[in-house]
């Protein structure tokens, strides 16, 4: 597609002489891909722009003024949101940070140790364990939410912080990614050399393998963090006490107040905007590790 676009524009610009012998000029902007990408960017960014602008509108401006005309009510929305039920919004935000932060850390730790074990050690049943994990990757977490609820309810853990954290600890996708990464990034020779020098397995893992796996683990952490932050169904089924709700669930209760109360659209929109800010910040901070990961992974394999 890109070469087509380049060739079409090339003669018009008159820079290439009649015979096309050498490689076409690669620096020329390829029109079609650029347009496609711009369109894609627009498609993704327009809703974000809508949220940002709508969050600045007061209740009376929200539906009556032009969609992309900034309003005057942002400060008011913010203080209303903070005042709603004595600041329960910030409690939700804190809960989300707890679920996503602790949940992603635990899950990354579990993924690292099991991914490493599956990649480095050869033992009977290894492939079977791995196949089960692969099946787990294919299983949407949504399907598991209700069985998980029934199990945790039996253990008297429903409606506790644990009920949301525990099911997140084992992430089949995280283990899968860690195994692939460990296989590529931790050479068997290095492990062997460690053994020759008399290091124990645990020491080899923590001191030698783990640092090599860091970029891959950052990816696992980021994936898990985002997944937990956006998770809805699991906490919805597990939790009934709204002081333990994560932000997704909290905003949902703000929206569904029953028919006889005015819907709190402005609060929900402002709340949704604030809820994505931590994710954006996290991405900006961790992004550099991420690109490093893709790069080093490609070189090492």
């Amino acid at each position, binding site marked *: 597609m890109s070469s087509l676009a380049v060739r079409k524009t090339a003669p018009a610009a008159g820079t290439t002489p009649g015979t096309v012998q050498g490689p076409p000029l690669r620096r020329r902007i390829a029109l079609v891909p650029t347009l496609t990408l711009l369109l894609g960017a627009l498609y993704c960014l327009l809703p974000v722009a809508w949220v940002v602008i709508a969050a600045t509108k007061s*209740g*009376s401006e929200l*539906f*009556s003024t032009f969609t992309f005309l900034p309003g005057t009510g942002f400060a008011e929305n913010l203080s209303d949101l903070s005042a709603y039920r004595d600041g329960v919004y910030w409690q939700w935000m804190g809960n989300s940070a707890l679920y996503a932060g602790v949940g992603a850390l635990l899950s990354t730790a*579990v993924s690292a*140790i*099991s991914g490493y*074990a*599956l990649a480095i*050690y*050869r*033992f*009977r*049943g*290894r492939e079977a*364990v791995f196949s*089960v*994990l692969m099946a787990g990757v294919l299983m949407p977490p949504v399907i598991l939410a*209700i069985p*998980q*609820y*029934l*199990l*945790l*309810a039996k*253990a*008297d*853990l*429903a*409606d*506790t912080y*644990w009920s949301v954290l*525990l*099911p997140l*600890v*084992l992430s089949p996708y995280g*283990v899968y990614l860690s195994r692939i990464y460990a296989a590529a990034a931790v050479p*068997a020779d290095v*492990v*062997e050399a460690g*053994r020759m020098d008399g290091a124990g*397995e645990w020491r080899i893992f923590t001191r030698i393998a783990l640092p090599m796996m860091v970029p891959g683990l950052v990816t696992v952490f980021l994936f898990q963090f985002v997944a937990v932050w956006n998770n809805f169904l699991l906490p*919805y*089924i597990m939790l*009934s*006490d*709204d002081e333990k709700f994560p932000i997704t*669930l909290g905003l*949902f*209760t703000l*929206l*569904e*107040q*029953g*028919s*006889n*109360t*005015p*819907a709190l*659209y402005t609060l929900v929109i402002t709340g949704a905007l604030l809820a994505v800010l931590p994710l954006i910040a996290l991405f900006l901070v961790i992004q550099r590790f991420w690109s490093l990961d893709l790069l080093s992974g490609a070189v090492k394999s």
Partner: protein
Amino acid sequence: MPNITKHRRFVATAVAVTLGATTLAACGGSDDDGEAQSGPAKLTYWTWTPGMDKVVDLWNKGPGKEQQITVTVKKQASGDTLVTKILTAHKAGKGPDLVQAEYQALPTLVSNDAVADIAKEAGDAKGKFADGVWQQTTLGSDAVYAIPQDIGPMMFYYREDLFEKYGLTVPKTWDDFAETARKLKKKEPGVDLTTFSANDSGLFAGLAQQAGAKWWSAEGQKWKVGIDDAATRKVADFWGGLVEEGAIDNQPMYTPAWNKALNTGKQIAWVSAVWAPGTLTTAAPDTQGKWKMAPLPQWSDSENVTGSWGGSSTAVTTDSRHKGAAAKFAAWLNTDPQALTALAKEGGIYPAATTAQTSDAFAQPPAFFSNQADFYTAASEIAKTTAPSAWGPNVNVAYTSFKDAFGAAAKDKSDFGAALRRMQDDTVADMKKQGFEVSE
């Protein structure tokens, strides 16, 4: 490849396998509510009513303290999803003691054995409610499955100033209503009287109820589904005709476009229920004081009935270990004058208890209707004329089918009768699938 001893192999297998079972193995001790014993009762209550915690505080400090019954509110999101959540919790035996449930959800909860019969403990609350309201909580039996909390009698809302401007009168019958719509369309083609919207099934159910429809009824051991009955067909054909000839709009409500149409006077009436002032406050903020409420148009001059759209009740679950205490609280919440005043003030509900509808809390009209001083007096008169309703065990399926079939029909301006038949077929098919006996 590394040379690994048998021992290490075993350890690695064990690690990988136990990790798979982390979620099960990590169950520790519980840090939450212990087993409830006799004596003082601690109850949990799932509700979506805003400000309910403040109302419950009145109980916990007053009658609850005397009787050693403490209630904790756990605020939930409203709607069908809550029913699913209650049923899931019930499956685990971990349901709360009390739940808020919409009337049309009660048969679903009862047929899943999730809510308890509290006829013994709270049966004498019956006198406080209109018969048509109370009947919804008994499902036509001797049992009492819930105490009514709020109701949504339907009414006709219109822009008083614009009706005057266009020379329209408030329609008394549905025929008048159709004439009004046509007259307006002729005078001002850019303005619609109202719209037919298929995104809230409760509206259509209420209109059918007004016309005398009985969507579900029990005949011995068998259910009879009458969604495609003569009364409902009359309603469907009426609205379908108006949409087809273009006398009214066919765009859904509750959208930004709908809000704008109401706010700018492009739509000048709305068939709604007693809670409409709250919706209009957010939807059409610039029109405060310009609306008026009137009774719903009738199917004939001699009739005076309305349907209901919305409303909910307080039910006691079968999981509760303190059914008596829970029923006592439910009765207090929905019949005690102090509780009802607080509910109206904090939760903005329109009470089901008849005496409360004319209490001091409803002496003033809602702020949005400051121009209509007798708003609540008129509302309580209308509430008395509410037709009985007949809900079945799969209202959610019928509602979903309505949204799909009628949504498409309204959009294409096609035959509403066909959409109604589809709704009937879907509902019957689902009931059969669930194992109910349905008579044809």
